[in-house]
């Protein structure tokens, strides 16, 4: 049996989302068509948009479906940047997801953007003082601020409200990357918008929906330049025939998120995941007392446990756990198939060697105590062997 502990990469689709998806794929009709079949498709699409909007505490008109979380982030950042021309400055914390990093770097290389990296502390929090100082240097030239809601590697929750409060006094739009937060902590766009957030990105496959659909939540008052031009669908922000079946499936997963975060449900799922996560943290501490838990120990995603193991490579641990039937991640971005030390840990001030000992264990809706048991059974031997392999591919003294 394979134990899946990489829910941050993608989480299993809900069975109901799979059946809704396959059923909806059998329905003929372009939602832009005028005839009855088109109207039926349109109805399915807009019902789905309403359900997704409800899970994000926003209005349906504010939900722009995209092909992925990455596309949503690109649309949020580039769209805001171009809409805010001629302003040039983009303020971004270090350690963001590559969807953000590479987008702002592209704008710096190909447009006139000036990217200013706001430092992180050793737990991965944005330095609010540095952000305030950066804004104050020339607030009129700031095109936007983009910040991740919960770090996808180390799980630290960012003080989004505080970031928005700094921006709102200068009418600077804030884009929030909520891809890794969505489904794990409440993502309340209404509350965030009140504080000053303009746009927010999510992805369906992180919550049990399908890969291939994401959404940019875009406040009514916010304008962005479209990246894709064509038939003018979705407020003319994102042209292209809309994927009804994917939206229907997304909506099934979104409704599960809404139910899970309802008053009636309380914090049951969050508490359950945090309980499993803490078992992982305690178990790792007893197997490898020198392993360091990365990120904020309290204000973190309930399903995220991220460690730096001393004296061994994350990829050795990953390989050995994989051989033992436990799927985890080194948490590092795998750019073009070439692993590289975690840029998040580097942004948090860790050495390259600490970054190379990184292992991310993430839990989700299918995770059970038995999964944690299996991990903790496999870990002692894997850790001992990975220690023996040590840093064979490292240069001593570096």
């Amino acid at each position: 049996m394979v134990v899946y502990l990489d829910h941050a990469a993608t989480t299993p689709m809900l069975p109901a989302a799979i059946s809704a998806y396959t059923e909806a794929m059998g329905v003929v009709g372009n939602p832009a068509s005028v005839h009855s079949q088109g109207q039926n498709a349109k109805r399915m699409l807009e019902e789905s948009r309403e359900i997704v909007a409800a899970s994000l505490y926003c209005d349906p008109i504010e939900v722009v479906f995209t092909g992925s979380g990455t596309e949503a982030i690109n649309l949020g950042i580039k769209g805001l940047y171009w809409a805010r021309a001629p302003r040039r400055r983009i303020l971004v914390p270090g350690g963001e997801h590559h969807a953000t990093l590479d987008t702002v770097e592209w704008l710096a290389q190909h447009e006139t953007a000036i990217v200013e990296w706001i430092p992180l502390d050793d737990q991965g929090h944005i330095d609010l003082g540095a952000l305030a100082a950066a804004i104050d240097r020339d607030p009129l030239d700031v095109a936007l601020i983009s910040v991740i809601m919960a770090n996808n590697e180390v799980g630290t929750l960012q003080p989004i409200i505080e970031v928005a409060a700094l921006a709102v006094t200068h009418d600077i739009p804030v884009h929030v990357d909520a891809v890794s937060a969505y489904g794990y902590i409440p993502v309340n766009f209404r509350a965030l918008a009140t504080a000053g957030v303009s746009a927010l990105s999510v992805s369906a496959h992180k919550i049990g929906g399908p890969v291939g659909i994401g959404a940019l939540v875009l406040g009514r008052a916010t304008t962005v330049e479209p990246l894709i031009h064509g038939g003018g669908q979705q407020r003319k922000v994102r042209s292209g025939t809309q994927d009804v079946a994917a939206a229907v499936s997304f909506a099934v997963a979104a409704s599960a998120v809404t139910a899970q975060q309802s008053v009636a449900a309380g914090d049951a799922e969050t508490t359950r995941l945090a309980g499993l996560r803490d078992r992982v943290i305690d178990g790792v501490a007893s197997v490898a007392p020198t392993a360091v838990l990365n990120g904020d120990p309290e204000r973190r995603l309930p399903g995220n446990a991220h460690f730096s193991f001393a004296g061994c490579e994350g990829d050795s641990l990953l390989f050995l756990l994989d051989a033992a039937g436990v799927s985890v991640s080194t948490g590092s971005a795998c750019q073009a198939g070439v692993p590289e030390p975690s840029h998040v840990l580097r942004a948090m001030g860790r050495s390259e060697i600490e970054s190379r000992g990184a292992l991310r264990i993430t839990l989700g809706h299918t995770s059970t105590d038995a999964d944690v048991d299996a991990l903790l059974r496999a870990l002692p031997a894997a850790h001992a062997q990975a220690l023996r392999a040590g840093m064979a591919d490292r240069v001593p003294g570096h």
Partner: protein
Amino acid sequence: MQAWPIGYPGTDASEPANRAVWLVRRHEWFLLPHVGRSGADAYNRRVKVLAAMSGGVDSAVAAARAVEAGHEVVGVHLALSRMPGTLRTGSRGCCTVEDSMDAQRAANIMGIPYYVWDFSERFKLDVVDDFIAEYAAGRTPNPCMRCNEKIKFAALLEKAIALGFDAVCTGHYASILTDADGNKELHRSAEWAKDQSYVLGVLTADQINHSMFPLGATPTKAEVRAEAAERGFSVANKPDSYDICFIPDGDTKGWLGERVAPATGDILDREGNTLGQHDGAVAFTVGQRKGLSIGTPAADGKPRFVLEVRPITNTVVVGPKEALAIKEIAGTSYTWAGVAPEHPEVEFDCHVQIRAHADPVPAVAQVVVSTMVSTSSTHATHATHATHATHASDAGVELRIIPNEPLAGVAPGQTAVVYVGTRVLGQCTIDRTVSAVPSSSTPSEIPASAISATVNA
């Protein structure tokens, strides 16, 4: 079926005297399901094999053969560069995005797990930086050899063993055979044209015991390609790589020029007279004829060749072709591939090969106390080869090789691989040569202590 130079023993199975040897040797060890063990139980044990997969056709077929031999195989692609570059057609370099995908697709077809391991830092230090430093020191290194010595059969093998593997499998064309006493020997591959035993000459007995070369017995590359096509590998027709992998455009001189500060210097004759100017000594290699741009012709009107590169004084020494003839080579940095000779201090017959595709030349070799060690002649090697501490050689002792006929185009830094028949006996990095044609002034040798100052990287 094979075109060995006459005189290689043990290769003609029709000779009764050789038949016993042949029968033993035909047991390519990779077919035997054990490593470094004896006893019948070991034969029942599956070997855990790490197949190093570059994304090329050879390593893919090698891995597939290891799978078919019944071993438990895991494919690993080494990420050797942090900047994998653009999508290039063919196999112009290592670890492009396409190479990694090609390797993974072959692993998928074999149904084996596949991982990418990051060796980029070690590769940079042990291979790329070493390459630059060697050139800066006026020597001609072989980076593929250094990669085998430091990465594939050292760092990777060590990690593999520690992670529970028994052996590393590669697509090199070479054979590991077992002698009558059960010792592993490294031999040439069946096909002369593809033989890669030279670049494996740096392997030690322990490394050979944990290596696997399933392509060693394959008569032709065409057969490997046909087999790849039959197996459905997309890389079946992928072009071979010939370049140095980290210099993808093949412009070694230009690449080095960006990394080693070029400076104009003098071109001298053997007597020390200045003949002209060059724009950076590092770009020259011993034996080179073109690109000297000397204004005045030689007195005898004959072409002149690079005889020596002196990085510290930034000078290049040129002379007639005859002066390139080398009658003796030696290196203090030597290793034995497998069982060492019982009496290496006693002169023995062998063949010596000084480049990957050079012909082997009959020679005699001997381990001797270096008579040159107190002179300046070997200082450069001692200084910059401090990283080669794993070599078994003792300071002041060198492997001396005297070819029956003088060799041409030998440069310090090259590796001399010593063969007995088809077997690789050992190797040394050449740090001393003796010209067959004495000149009026002895070629000077330079300590390399200040060399790093000229290196940008």
